[in-house]
């Protein structure tokens, strides 16, 4: 075997008969691998364009800061070597006056004003009033005096640090804002002013709603999964329709159904009134209760299916063995059955929690103003107020939380062979 191989190697002979089998197999395998990769590649390229790229772009926006740089380029350049201890020198004032004149001519002043107003409330007025009152470029050497006269804010150091800090090209401003933090004039990270510090509350609310829904799903889903796993296949398949039909029904239909059921003249209130249990309609919707009920309804199948598949895998022999060894039913259930369902409980709970974190449509339709979750604000800042930096930063935080939880879920599912929840 050694001789022909060397010969083939030395002579570089390529004839089929002379190439050893091992190498031919290796070559065939390599060709197979390249072919396999070529089959995956179209999807990867597609997802790069329609999914990964857009999300990377969003993440970039959460740290990008280009508006002020673009509108006030000379000012940003002049402030680059400012020590920030005292007011900047005349050069910076002259640069600002020049930038403002140019921006007024091109109509871009509002872009910078909007961005600076995020960092310092009232900055929009400072900038627009200055633009309005600056009739002509100030004489050399008088820019500081002229601007100070138009708006005394230009005599304050904080006004200038705001411009410098918004000079980009990258900023931590939006990410800090998303966590209710900000930088003070000295560059230290401090708590944001109370009127802007709303996001930790929103994250807490999102977390609490998701947690409540997960717990509700677990409480309601466990007995159902247990029943489905315990029944003979014929009957459990039939009952499975009760789980799968809502699963396949449009989210909008289910949300709409809950509104019809829970509204003040809805089916639930009418029935309770008719039964004499209540005297006046209860407020069941457009509040936290409605959000939790509707979300639990939508997410319950995601809990039942992984629980069911983990329970189905538990051999009844274990329980019989426990019973035959004298364990009372409750002890057997708690010590033999329940521990074996833990992977299913973990997978189902994580899945429901992950999906709940990103909910937008259901809270938007059945919740009140105080029940809106983080996705609502991301959408609001994107389409309504066009504060894209903040929307992206909030999105980045939500994405990070989702990815971390999904990694845990992946480990759990991989370790336990629970196919849980992937819609099949």
């Amino acid at each position, binding site marked *: 075997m050694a001789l022909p191989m060397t010969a083939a190697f030395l002579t570089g002979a390529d004839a089929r008969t002379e190439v050893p089998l091992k190498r031919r197999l290796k070559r065939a395998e390599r060709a197979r691998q390249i072919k396999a990769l070529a089959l*995956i590649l179209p999807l990867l390229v*597609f997802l790069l364009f329609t999914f990964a790229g857009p999300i990377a772009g969003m993440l970039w926006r959460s740290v990008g800061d280009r508006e002020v740089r673009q509108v006030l380029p000379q000012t940003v350049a002049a402030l680059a070597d400012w020590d920030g201890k005292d007011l900047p020198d005349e050069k910076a004032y002259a640069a600002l006056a020049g930038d403002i004149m140019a921006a007024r001519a091109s109509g871009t002043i509002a872009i910078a004003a909007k961005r600076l107003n995020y960092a310092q409330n009232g900055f929009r007025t400072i900038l627009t009033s200055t633009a309005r009152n600056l009739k002509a470029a100030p004489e050399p050497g008088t820019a500081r005096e002229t601007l100070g006269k138009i708006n005394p804010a230009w005599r304050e150091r904080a006004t200038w640090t705001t411009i410098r800090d918004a000079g980009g090209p990258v900023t931590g401003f939006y990410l800090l804002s998303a966590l209710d933090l900000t930088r003070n004039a000295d560059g230290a990270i401090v708590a944001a002013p109370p009127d802007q510090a709303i996001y930790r509350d929103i994250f807490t609310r999102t977390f609490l709603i998701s947690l409540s829904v997960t717990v509700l799903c677990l409480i309601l889903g466990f007995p159902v999964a247990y029943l489905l796993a315990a029944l003979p296949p014929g009957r459990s398949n039939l009952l499975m329709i009760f789980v799968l039909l809502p699963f396949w029904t449009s989210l909008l239909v289910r949300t709409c*159904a809950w509104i019809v059921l829970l509204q003040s003249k809805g089916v639930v209130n009418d029935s309770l009134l008719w039964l004499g249990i209540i005297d006046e309609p209860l407020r069941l919707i457009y509040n936290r209760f409605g959000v939790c009920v509707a979300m639990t309804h939508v997410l319950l199948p995601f809990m039942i299916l992984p629980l069911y598949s983990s329970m189905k895998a538990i051999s009844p022999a274990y329980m019989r063995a426990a019973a035959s060894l004298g364990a009372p039913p409750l002890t057997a259930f708690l010590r033999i059955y329940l521990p074996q369902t833990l992977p299913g409980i973990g997978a189902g709970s994580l899945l429901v929690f992950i999906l709940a974190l990103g909910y937008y449509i259901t809270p938007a339709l059945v919740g009140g103003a105080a029940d809106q979750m983080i996705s609502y604000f991301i959408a609001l800042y994107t389409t309504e107020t066009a504060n894209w930096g903040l929307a992206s930063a909030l999105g980045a935080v939500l994405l990070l939380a*989702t990815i971390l939880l999904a990694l845990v879920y992946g480990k759990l599912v991989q370790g336990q062979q629970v196919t849980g929840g992937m819609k099949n």
Partner: protein
Amino acid sequence: MSDNSSLRTPSQRIAWTATIVISTLVFIFLIAPILAIMPLSFSSGSYLTYPLPGVSLRWYDDFINSPRWMNSLKNSMIIGVASTLLSMVLGTLAALGLAQWKSRFKPLVLAFVLSPVVVPGVITAVGLYFFFAPIGLTGSYLGLILAHTALATPFVVITVGATLQSFDTNLARAAASLGASPLDAFRRVILPLILPGVASGALFAFATSFDEVVIVLFMAGPEQRTLPREMFSGIRENISPTITAAAVILTTVSVILLATLEGLRRRNERLKGSSA
């Protein structure tokens, strides 16, 4: 556990009864809202309350004669079918490739391919909104089809991948050894065997697109509004019984999809059973 003969003690019987009672209540909770909304679409009155003042088809009539609703149904169909076809091709190819690919990066690539299912809809939508707007893909069918394909393809990869797990690769080798060209082998041996997987993947893909509303909210212009998008506005503004008619139509589509999927699953099990 599988039958009542194992329930020997009274406490076990009580526990079992409790399980049945609680489960029944949960089943009612799951199904009742969907059933409750249906009769309202046949109401002759314009309030969404029981008892119905009378039975009529006026709200279906309203739906069919409303250009807004009919256009949205048409849009849902166009976008749903197009993104299903696209995700079938991309997903089946990728699943075939992934089944053969041996690399330590495989789990990573798989996680990436499946990630559109897990990432919150708003994040994908915002990303696409920023990304597609400058290249003119917002307010276009193409943009929505591409976005829905990204969301739907993971399901095709999963279902076809699951079929391939029980697929005997020797069959492909046998075809090759008998002189079939790779294309022939694919068309006449591999494809028929993975077809149930492709079909159920397609159903999931269609359902995903047909039900999707967040991306449509961000990206669709007035021309591309889909049925769920129209329902979203309808629910926000005021719920007219026409919405319940739309809901019944949507649910009918869901039931057809679910029944088809169940049929596929049964057929597959029967085939497996006969070959074993």
